[in-house]
């Protein structure tokens, strides 16, 4: 294994490696470092393949059960081939440049977030390609590569500082800013922590190495090959004065002659392949900060500890990547390209399904959708977080992975998916280019069949379902959720109209308190029946009572008697068109239509429990 330690070029690394049994360069056989690296690489690859296989095998929504994974793979491959050999390929390039490399969709959302993400993205890429894969990439492409000379020495530090600055912004945004409806879950904590640990340990390592006396001696021995004590002392004085070394042997102020001698040794032996440590500015600043305790840290083996933390965090991050939200590094670019290339109107159902599964992995839980969600205030009032698109996405991931949800969870997600105005804003705002709108359509139908009856089905939130989705559904699948909800919430109308229904004569005033304050205009009703006469719903039926339970004037009468429960069970309230004819025509200014709204609220509260 020759990634970090094989090349003579990576001398500083080599110097460390000789000290650590885990990573000791031992010639031709593998070290513990190699085993760890390959183990995490294999987990990463297998994990990625497993996750990508889900794109073709799993589905949400009423998918065609006959659609085999092979069919979906074939459709995807066919689609991609067609795309490569058509003018659409220009769209792919556009997506790569504008959406992936420049992250145009992020800057549209928030300049600050864009800057932070660019810092992390480019900083991380630089570290990955130049530093982590130096033996594979940097050395092969740049003949002058030494990690300790410029520009590499400076760039490594700069990249680390860039990522850290981006992470600091994320911490600020996630934990301190009060962005409305931005929810931070375990996955978000993880992403911040893993990046912070890798970067802080890396910069910490540089800082410690700058101060470390043992490191200094080791390098003098390994690279300079000095054995003249005077020369070493002179060099040490220079490194203490200019390079942040903390020495137990020498201390400023230094004699000019000593420094001059040291400078000469430095030029002859060190500067050829080691620039001033000040170029690693963040490491150098850290070195200055820890100066008072640097000696103790060095003796306590601080370098070893940080090195282990750094390497283990990197390997853990790599192995866990496909299972964390960092998987978006691979999925979001694909989603962004698909967003430019695929026209949902003409895409094959197989590819749409595959794309939706990919989109679940492309979601970074950034919260743009929830910030802009049209139902945001409805969430604030109802309090079900699953109304927010970002939270629905998290739940969907669990659901697709086959996790069994309880009835209560299904009810919550069902309501969350249904309390959506189908306005498309989440799709417009998603920086990952996820077509959330279509995802909701699919998920909604699957959930409606599974979830308990949802009162929300009996509201104008159903409008889009009636005018858009209906055309794609089998009649039974379309009607079932409506019938289920109606039976659950308004099913008692038979009981209401049956003659033997008991009217509690001792009904307490408490019942009317189920209505809002000031909603007692029913008490002005003198039973002229104008409301019922002008009601277009009543007028639609030869025999309205069996269909509607109670008619509008009867409902007002029931309210007058304190029978709120009875009134709230009449099917009439759910067949009300809310055209306000009743209220407009009432000679007593009874707010008939508004009272029917209130009764629906009462019934929904009871049904939601």
């Amino acid at each position, binding site marked *: 294994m020759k990634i970090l330690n094989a090349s003579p070029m990576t001398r500083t690394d080599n110097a460390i490696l000789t000290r650590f049994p885990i990573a000791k360069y031992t010639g031709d056989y593998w070290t513990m470092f190699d085993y760890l690296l390959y183990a995490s690489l294999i987990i990463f690859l297998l994990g990625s393949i497993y996750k990508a296989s889900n794109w073709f095998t799993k589905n949400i929504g009423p998918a065609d059960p006959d659609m085999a994974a092979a069919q979906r793979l074939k459709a995807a491959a066919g689609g991609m081939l067609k795309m490569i050999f058509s003018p659409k390929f220009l769209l792919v390039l556009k997506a790569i440049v504008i959406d992936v490399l420049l992250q145009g969709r992020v800057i549209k959302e928030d300049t600050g977030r864009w800057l932070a993400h660019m810092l992390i993205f480019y900083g991380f890429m630089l570290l990955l390609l130049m530093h982590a894969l130096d033996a594979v990439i940097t050395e092969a492409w740049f003949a002058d590569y030494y990690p300790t000379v410029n520009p590499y020495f400076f760039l490594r530090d700069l990249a680390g500082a860039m990522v850290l600055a981006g992470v600091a912004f994320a911490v600020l945004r996630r934990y301190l800013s009060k962005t409305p409806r931005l929810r931070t879950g375990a996955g978000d904590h993880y992403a911040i922590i893993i990046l912070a640990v890798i970067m802080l340990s890396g910069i910490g390592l540089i800082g410690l190495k700058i101060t470390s006396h043992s490191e200094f001696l080791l390098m003098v021995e390994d690279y300079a090959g000095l054995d003249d004590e005077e020369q070493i002392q002179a060099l040490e004085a220079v490194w203490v004065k200019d390079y942040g070394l903390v020495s137990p042997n020498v201390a400023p102020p230094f004699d000019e002659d000593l420094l001059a001698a040291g400078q000469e040794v430095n030029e002859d032996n060190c500067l050829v392949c080691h620039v001033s440590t000040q170029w690693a500015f963040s490491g150098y600043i850290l070195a200055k900060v820890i100066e008072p305790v640097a000696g103790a840290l060095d003796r306590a083996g601080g370098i070893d500890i940080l090195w282990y933390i750094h390497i283990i965090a990197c390997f853990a991050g790599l192995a866990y990547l496909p299972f964390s939200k960092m998987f978006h590094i691979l999925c979001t670019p694909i989603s962004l390209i698909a967003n430019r290339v695929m026209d949902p109107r003409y895409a094959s159902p197989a590819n749409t399904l595959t794309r939706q599964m990919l989109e679940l992995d492309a979601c970074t839980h950034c919260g743009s959708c929830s910030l802009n969600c*049209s139902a945001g205030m409805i969430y604030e009032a109802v309090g079900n977080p699953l109304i927010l698109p970002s939270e629905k996405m998290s739940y969907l991931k669990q659901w697709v992975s086959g996790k069994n949800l309880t009835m209560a969870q299904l009810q919550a997600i069902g309501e969350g998916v249904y309390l959506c105005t189908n306005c498309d804003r989440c799709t417009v705002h998603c920086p990952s280019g996820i077509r959330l709108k279509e995802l909701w359509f699919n998920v909604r139908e699957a959930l409606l069949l599974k979830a308990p009856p949802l009162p929300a089905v009996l509201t104008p939130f159903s409008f889009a379902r009636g005018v858009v989705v209906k055309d794609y559904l089998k009649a039974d699948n379309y009607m079932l959720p409506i019938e289920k909800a109606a039976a659950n919430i308004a099913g008692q109308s038979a009981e209401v109209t049956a003659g033997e229904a008991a009217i509690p004569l001792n009904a307490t005033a408490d019942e009317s308190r189920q209505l809002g304050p000031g909603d007692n205009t029913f008490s002005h009703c003198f039973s002229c029946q104008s409301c019922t006469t002008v009601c277009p719903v009543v007028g639609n039926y030869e025999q309205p009572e069996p269909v509607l339970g109670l008619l509008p004037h009867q409902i007002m009468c029931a309210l007058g008697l304190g029978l709120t429960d009875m009134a709230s069970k009449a099917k009439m309230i759910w067949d009300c068109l809310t055209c306000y004819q009743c209220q407009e025509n009432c000679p007593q200014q009874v707010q008939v239509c508004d009272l029917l709204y209130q009764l*629906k609220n009462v019934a929904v509260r009871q049904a939601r429990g």
Partner: protein
Amino acid sequence: MRFALFQGCNIPARLVQYADATRAVCRKLDIELLEPDQFNCCGYPARNLDQRAFVLSAAKNLAVAEKAGLDMLVMCKCCYGALKKAAWVLGADADLKKDINAVLAKEKLQYEGRVEIKHLLTVLHRDVGIDNLKPLMAKSFSGLQIAASYGCHALRPSNVTGFDDPVTPHIFDELVEITGAFSVEWARKLDCCGAPLTGINDRLAREMAAKKIASARDAGANYLCTACPYSHIQFDWVQNQMAAETAGWEPLAAILYPQLLGLCMGIDETTLGLSNNRLELADISSFLMT
């Protein structure tokens, strides 16, 4: 004139031509339309569920417009009715207003009650005025009979909405007639189009639509005219479904008011998005005289 354009949720997602035509017409009238990004659902669909959710959702929009220092130009009559109702409820209930403002504070918003809520039709009729519209008619319809659908949630409850006279409304008829078209008297002009129950009780919703369409046809209308996405989708999309399922159904197409007005202002059919309507509208140009 400057307004905050409130499209609601249906128009950007399903009826883009309504917004396009409105913008084109407003450009001709020097009406500047701004679209605050923070607007959200008007609250109308939540009314069945929870009054507080409805009022909160509506109030956020009102507060956003107030913050921008603009009055609202609302395109949807259900949004219009909901926003008017919420403003009315908040005006009457100080405790609720306090509660709502506490939630809005999280969004750095505050509702005081200064914003005026106007519908596209009331802006055209009252703020611009029939007399100022007339000179802008580059062309005129001749022999065209239009059935103007007023829309329940704009008309009623009239003490809350203040849209027009609830029994003998006239603004939509007058706006139709400046185009040279004849606004027919039809029995179900003020009735419900059925949209509030579409998706909930489709049978009833369609019966309502069918009665309205039949009434317009009986009155000799060539087209229905709408200024509300719910009514329009009901007459355009749902009628299209009904026609597909019912033998011998002769559809009566609906045109959005700014499309009708735009044609007379000399705005081209593509800008007005005539072809985005599902039921065929192309023939309407044959009534147009220059």
